[in-house]
């Protein structure tokens, strides 16, 4: 494979975004948005095929000597993450097209710039470039957050910008301290540096702290659960799949590379991430809207994913990476299926949505599959993910952690049944006031629900197939991954092997 093509994964979406800002919204713009996302997915799959057997590709931009140039590296882990990211961007864009949101001015270019930032953050091997790419990812998110234009969205947007700006500044301070203590920000040269010098470890700890805030680890998860309910469902699904997951990727990468898996610090991770699992799921119990329940579950699942790095065994890392990919797909599917209901009915409130999705078998299947997968039931990918993770925890002798992980799964299932029982299985809508119209609601839905018939005989609003298909596609992916888990397990094992033994990565990026 020609490594010159690596930076193209960042450049092509940026170019697409530039074109989209000057094009009028319409069919051509939609095609460009979906086409660029599909192209990135194809590139991700090609990269995954090329790195499948443990090959690491590195490119020094501008062919400057290693150490001076901006390095782009792709190994199995980053290729796996890149492919999943591309899949989510494509599916969420399709959902945004179906809701008509993609017609908003600057929506499509912002999504593409966001995806370019994510690819850059996954591929870069330089701490300062990582900061820049994370900012490239966040700046369009600020715009997407405010694009809804409602007061609630704006309030969420303020909190979101403030929390993320503070974290980014802490991240930057960490980068400054790393440069001051280690004399470099090149990941290849930083390999093992934190184990050699405690000063570098403290500086790197600041970077990891910033990343943990971005990943919404308890006790710094408050910003996430209060802001992710503010934007539209498509944007929430996109954010949930990309933002926190990039932070998790960076935590995995930096701890493996710079700390070299230092065993004496792992107990901090075990305590914090187990607390994250438990607090997240308990927070969801008291919530009353579909999206806030799902957002709290996201916090809980982040605890599971990061448990892999806290165990730092081969099995643990493999389980964590498998869990990460599984979670990105499943969570987006849940946000999209409940988002379709929310879009048509204009509310996510469980009480008002009672029985709203009756007579929607396809949507019900999509939600049920993803919900069972999230809770960890066979034959979905969540079962394999949880099983390997619990097995890894038992293997490492962490009995308490394994027990809590299993208990949290049960509460997760209970919470999913709460949404299921209310929205899909509740008594048919009849009594009670007609649902209010949301700000971004499509006109045909307005005709269907609010004005048609008296409340007692009102038929449930039909949800168009275009809104349902994205969620169905993602649920199909989690089912396929669950049935053919060996393929993804092998890829995760390969990625984990490179995190345990970083020499191939360092060799490729430093050209030695």
């Amino acid at each position, binding site marked *: 494979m020609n490594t010159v093509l690596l930076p193209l994964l960042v450049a092509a979406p940026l170019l697409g975004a530039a074109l989209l800002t000057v094009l009028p919204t319409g069919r051509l713009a939609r095609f460009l948005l979906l086409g660029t996302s599909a192209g990135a997915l194809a590139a991700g799959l090609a990269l995954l095929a090329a790195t499948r057997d443990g090959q690491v590709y590195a490119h020094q931009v501008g062919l400057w000597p290693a150490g001076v140039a901006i390095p782009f590296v792709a190994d199995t882990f980053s290729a796996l993450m890149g492919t999943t990211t591309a899949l989510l961007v494509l599916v969420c864009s399709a959902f945004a097209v179906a809701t008509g949101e993609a017609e908003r001015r600057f929506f499509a270019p912002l999504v593409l710039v966001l995806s370019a930032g994510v690819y850059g953050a996954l591929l870069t091997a330089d701490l300062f470039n990582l900061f820049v790419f994370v900012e490239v990812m966040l700046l369009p998110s600020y715009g997407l957050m*405010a694009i809804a234009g409602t*007061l609630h969205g*704006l309030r969420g947007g*303020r909190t979101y910008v403030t929390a993320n*700006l*503070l974290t980014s*500044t802490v991240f930057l*301070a960490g980068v*400054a301290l790393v*440069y001051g203590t280690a004399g470099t920000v090149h990941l290849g040269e930083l390999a093992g540096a934190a184990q050699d010098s405690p000063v570098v470890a403290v500086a790197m700890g600041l970077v990891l702290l910033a990343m943990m805030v971005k990943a919404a680890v308890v006790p710094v998860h408050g910003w996430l659960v209060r802001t992710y309910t503010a934007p539209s469902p498509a944007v929430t699904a996109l954010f949930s799949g990309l933002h926190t997951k990039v932070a998790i990727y960076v935590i995995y990468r930096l701890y493996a590379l710079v700390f070299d898996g230092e065993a004496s610090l792992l107990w901090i991770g075990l305590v914090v991430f187990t607390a994250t699992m438990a607090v997240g799921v308990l927070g969801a119990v008291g919530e009353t809207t579909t999206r806030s329940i799902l957002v709290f579950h996201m916090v809980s699942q982040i605890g599971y994913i990061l448990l892999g790095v806290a165990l730092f065994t081969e099995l643990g890392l493999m389980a964590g990476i498998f869990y990460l990919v599984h979670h990105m797909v499943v969570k987006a599917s849940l946000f999209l299926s409940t988002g379709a209901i929310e879009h048509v009915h204009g509310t996510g409130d469980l009480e008002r949505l009672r029985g709203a999705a009756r007579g929607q078998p396809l949507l019900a299947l999509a939600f049920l599959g993803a919900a069972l997968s999230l809770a960890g039931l066979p034959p979905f990918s969540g079962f394999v993910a949880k099983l390997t993770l619990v097995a890894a925890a038992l293997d490492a002798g962490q009995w308490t952690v394994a027990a809590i992980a299993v208990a949290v799964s049960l509460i997760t299932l209970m919470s999913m049944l709460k949404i299921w029982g209310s929205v899909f299985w509740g008594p048919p809508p009849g009594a009670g006031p007609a649902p209010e119209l949301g700000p971004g609601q499509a006109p045909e839905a307005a005709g269907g629900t609010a004005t048609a018939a008296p409340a007692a005989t009102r038929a449930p609003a039909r949800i168009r197939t275009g809104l349902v298909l994205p969620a169905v596609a993602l649920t199909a992916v989690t089912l396929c991954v669950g049935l053919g888990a060996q393929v993804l397990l092998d890829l995760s094992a390969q990625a984990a092997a490179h995190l345990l033994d970083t020499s191939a990565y360092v060799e490729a990026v430093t050209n030695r």
Partner: protein
Amino acid sequence: MTLAITIGVLIAGAVYLVLQRGMVRIVLGFVLLSHGVNLLLMSAGGVSRREAPLLAGGGGEALADPLPQAFVLTAIVIAFSITIYMLTLAATGKGDDTEDAS
């Protein structure tokens, strides 16, 4: 030493302002915070060597480290754009949390 004290004062002021209720004060706090962190980045390259990093400028002992300066330049641009955006957020949507609670 002067640099360390300056960074400390900037960050202290920033923390005070960010903890206020008004959005504009929070924005000003972030301006101070980014100044403080930019100075931290500058100091990471060493402050004793200050010659311009040009080829004719002398040996490695006298030249300033150009890399942190490039970092700071990038960081300033990013902080500036976000400041503008936050000021826009502060100006739109009245009656939110912009009034002073004191």
